[in-house]
């Protein structure tokens, strides 16, 4: 009886682990870095996380968790609530449906796929924000953010891969 409770707790912790890691990264993303000229730039950790887990273990970051990550991201970032959530859910849906094509693909291809997704997401966010604000907003910060996010992908993916290995070892 006791062991089954621990087993249960272990299972819960395991399912929550990628989500917790993502939320921690989101919090890290808004710490002021005080680097000149870099203040308005913020990497899209949420996008990296959703792409990675949708591709490698969609069961461990299910759609409701993606929704929650999106809401938190919009809350932290003072963005119009819902826009980021919508973009993340669409990315999640597309990647989960396409993940068979990526199975066994070299990392460079996965990274290229992420670059395409990040560019698409930045473009979508730019269009939706322009519509919401009723004016054409400056796209340059979005382009810069997108480049930074794509550049950070290998490092964050490595972190997630370690987390994932830790999970399967306990299986």
């Amino acid at each position, binding site marked *: 009886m006791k062991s089954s409770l621990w087993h249960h707790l272990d299972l819960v912790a395991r399912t929550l682990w990628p989500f917790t890691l993502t939320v921690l990264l989101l919090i890290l993303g808004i710490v002021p870095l*005080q680097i000149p000229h870099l203040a308005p730039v913020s990497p899209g950790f949420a996008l990296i996380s959703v792409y990675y887990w949708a591709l490698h273990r969609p069961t461990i970051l*299910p759609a409701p968790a993606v929704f929650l990550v999106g809401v938190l991201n919009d809350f*932290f970032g*003072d963005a119009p609530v*819902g826009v980021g959530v919508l973009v993340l859910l*669409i990315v999640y849906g597309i990647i989960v449906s396409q993940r068979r094509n990526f199975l066994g693909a070299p990392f460079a291809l996965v990274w290229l796929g992420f670059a395409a997704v990040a560019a698409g997401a930045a473009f979508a966010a730019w269009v939706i924000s322009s519509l919401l*604000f009723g004016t054409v907003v*400056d796209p340059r*910060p979005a382009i810069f953010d997108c480049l930074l996010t794509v550049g950070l992908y290998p490092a964050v993916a490595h972190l997630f891969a370690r987390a994932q290995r830790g999970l399967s070892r306990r299986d």
Partner: protein
Amino acid sequence: MKSHAGSMLRFASPLKAWSQRFTLALLIGASVALMLLDRADSIIIERTRAAVVDAISPILDVLSRPVSGAAEILENVGELANLREENARLREDRARLLQWQSVARELDAQNQALRELLNLVPDPRARFISARVIGNTAGPFVRSALVTAGYRDGARKGQAVMTGEGFAGRVSEVGRRSARILLLTDINSRIPVLVERTRERAVLAGDNTNSPHLLYLPPNSGTTPGDRIVTSGHGGIFPPGLPVGVVSSAGEDGVSVQPFVDWSRVEYVRLVDYELPGILLSPSGHRPD
């Protein structure tokens, strides 16, 4: 037994895929609903957002300390490199400022005397609340920041936010122990200002770039690059005369302003609690919040 399990799996997996797709569609619908709710009634969203940010503000507070420490060390190294130049410049500045000090003393005394003669109503007092910056925005289309002062410390929505250099923005959201500042460069920021030299009124509008522009300036205004921009105090929310920035370019396509505040190196801010009695009093005599 094995084949039985296989057939179960064959039967169950489309069902599972279908339910997953249904969940995804439902959540996409929910996110659109959130968007509409945010547009229609932002009070609920605002409260929730403030509560969530409040909950993580202690974590941010701890995390931002070592970062600012590291930034300080880097800055110290940079300062050591041009100590000599800086020293010479400061000597020059000091000589010039001493002259200004005597001018200012004289003007202050004169001003005081003239005010007494005219029996002018004194400006309301402003109270300052100091707070640490613990978070920047996480998005390319907003310019805002989180600070450690909240409702319990006297932070209220609409207060002006200053740094040592000048006006930085206004408080846009207040939680119990944290508040969010809308920077003057944000696309939603509108600040009533004056061109200090010509006394012309205008509205400083952010556009997410580092140089906001002036709206509603009279068509033949004599505004030229180098003119100082200060808050006008119209609307009664901000004290008048807070330094905002200098005009960086003025031409056919509008007037843009270079703010005094360089947001990338701000660690502490002051919220200005400006008591304007009379106008903002509710019928019961209490200040509405």
